[in-house]
């Protein structure tokens, strides 16, 4: 950790920063006007935890994640809200040079389809040096040795990988390179967008183990995004379920999986075929997720696919309320035993 950016980074493994997202709305400009892909989201990434963000394609996961780096690209923009990161403050107003340093330096991002996001014309080592220069790293040699160490840590021959072009690496190797590039500048907030999609099961299991171990060793605050709730079950401490630009349920991963309360969460879990037990218990979630143009403006965004829909669901948007360990946004659940009482202001409840 002898890099130039180390001055900004928390020292040791105990100072993972917390992330607080408040009232975040991100809109995309479309022919029908600016439409929200992320709507008034409040969410915390508690320091040192792995949070899994789950939802079907189009639910707004990548958009939310890009907001953490203030990296939403036109035609999109953050139209309201704050993203506060310990030691950095709110990243939403950051611009230019300052923003560039934060990305990669403090927040590492492994892009969706990292398997294909490397530059095919440059070796991995060359791309590493480009990254170092763009972050004004003085000691490039230290950067290279840090990269080799990280790659070695992930079971790869670092020197060989740095000499390789993308096409010479397998899917699982590219994903590891993506993780190395996200961490090599000593970032302590790491976002992994669909890190195992398109990998087979054994490779996926290897990558998930690497994520768990590196998270613990380096003292990170990690966000893992996936459409596969099984992946989250394997790595995450906290689970947030996203639908139509909203968080509809969240809480500790085992509570949410063991006792899902939102009909959407229940549907996602039921859609996973299992290795043992009655196969016909598994069922696809009926219908399809909404697109920007079809997300209803009023009422519950999930109602078209919900078996418990009531008349209030058409007009009033449910808000997150506490139920035991979980926060749930559903009128049907709110009618049952809410033991937390009032709607929760997200700020206070995290451990």
């Amino acid at each position, binding site marked *: 950790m002898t890099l130039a950016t180390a001055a900004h980074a928390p020292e040791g493994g105990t100072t993972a920063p917390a992330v607080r997202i408040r009232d975040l709305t991100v809109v995309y400009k479309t022919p029908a006007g600016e439409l929200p892909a992320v709507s008034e989201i409040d969410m915390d990434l508690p320091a040192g935890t792995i949070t899994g963000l789950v939802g*079907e*394609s189009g639910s707004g996961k990548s958009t939310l994640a890009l907001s953490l780096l203030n990296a939403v690209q036109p035609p999109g923009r953050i139209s309201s809200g704050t993203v506060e990161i310990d030691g950095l403050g709110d990243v939403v107003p950051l611009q230019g040079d300052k923003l560039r340093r934060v990305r990669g330096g403090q927040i590492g991002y492994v892009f969706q389809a990292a398997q294909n996001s490397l530059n095919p014309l440059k070796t991995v080592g060359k791309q590493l040096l480009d990254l170092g220069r763009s972050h004004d790293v003085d000691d490039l040699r230290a950067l290279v040795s840090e990269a080799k160490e990280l790659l070695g840590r992930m*079971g*790869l021959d670092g020197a060989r990988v740095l000499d390789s072009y993308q096409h010479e690496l*397998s*899917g*699982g*190797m590219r994903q590891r390179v993506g993780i190395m590039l996200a961490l090599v500048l000593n970032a302590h907030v790491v976002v992994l967008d669909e890190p195992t999609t*398109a990998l*087979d*099961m*054994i*490779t*996926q*299991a*290897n990558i*998930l183990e690497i994520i768990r171990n590196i998270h613990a060793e380096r003292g990170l605050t990690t966000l893992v995004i996936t*459409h*596969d*709730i*099984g*992946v989250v*079950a*394997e790595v995450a401490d906290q689970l947030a379920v996203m639908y139509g630009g909203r968080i509809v349920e969240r809480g500790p*991963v*085992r*509570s*949410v*999986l*063991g*006792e899902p309360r939102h009909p959407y969460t229940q*549907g*996602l*879990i039921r*859609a*996973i*075929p*299992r*290795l*043992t*037990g009655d*196969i016909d218990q*598994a*069922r*696809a*979630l009926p219908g*399809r*997720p909404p697109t920007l143009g079809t997300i209803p403006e009023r009422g519950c965004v999930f109602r078209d696919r919900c078996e418990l829909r009531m008349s209030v669901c058409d007009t009033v948007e449910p808000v997150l309320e506490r139920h035991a360990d979980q926060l749930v946004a559903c009128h049907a659940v709110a009618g049952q035993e809410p033991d937390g009482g009032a709607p929760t202001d997200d700020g206070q409840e995290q451990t």
Partner: protein
Amino acid sequence: MISGTGIVKTFRQRGDVLGKNEVKALRGVDFTIPEGGAISFIGESGCGKTTLGRIIAGLETHDEGEITIGGVAMSSLRTRAQQPHFRRIQLIHQDPYSALNPTRTVHQALHDPLKLRARETGRSSQWIYERAEELLGLVGLDPGYVLPRYPHQLSGGMRQRVVIARALTVDPDVLVADEAVSMIDVSLRLGILRLLRDLREQLGVSLLYITHDVATARYIGADGDMYVIYRGQVVESGPTETIINQPVHPYTQSLLSAIPVLYGVEQPGAEQVTPIDSLTTAAVGETVDDAGCLFAPRCPFRTERCTRERPVLGDAVPALQDAEGRVHACFHPIERQVAATSVQAP
């Protein structure tokens, strides 16, 4: 019924006379797809699944072995005479987008094969329209909605259903589904898999399901056989539930152990097996080829014998090759409970 015996396929780089860069994609694979049955091939990427599927569908040649379709050995026929047989086997592959021509509407995509079919069977052009609507209904699509649309105007799941409808235009006996749902959200996959199951029930079409995802293979073919393939060799096969609940080959056990456990709902199998990381050995599908067990470089249970001798499917050792049809290729077979099981609700 369709069967294959001793299917061998080696890919050689052009100009590679010494065979240094050859890839043994299939090393003598046997299989049987029963009439109206469902079987699955499971294994990691690069182990030869797609190559096998393409050979069975007549889209790829093979070097050795025999494919027999409805009792007719394909080697006895000239290529032209093989075609009507292979047309009874339709391939559905993983990417429904590349399978459909982006400049043609669903109507156009179905019209051509149906026109051919109408000519073969002496039917009217009116039939073509009726049949297109019937097939789309069968795959769960609204013909009025999808017929005029282009592939990019449909969701991934809808596109895959269109691909299935197009495969059905020739009234196939077998559908080969190669990772057919891997590009679709987990939440919607079972809709497509359910459709394949229904088609098997309603039309009697057999299924060959190819995947790295064992749980979906069970969903499709719990009553059929599962074949576990590693580097071009079937290393274990037998009734699907036996392979999942009492696997004996360490590779099968590794695949099953790698499936995410739904903690909170499930608990991991008691005897999970973690293979040695392939990247610290050589890559799957590698060219180096020593004499021993193909899985030995990654096998946590290998012995000296394993690196010397190659175990043969059904014949490695007598133990645990059972009467119910389970066979394996391992010198040290031990049943291990590796599949996750449900935790009882409190």
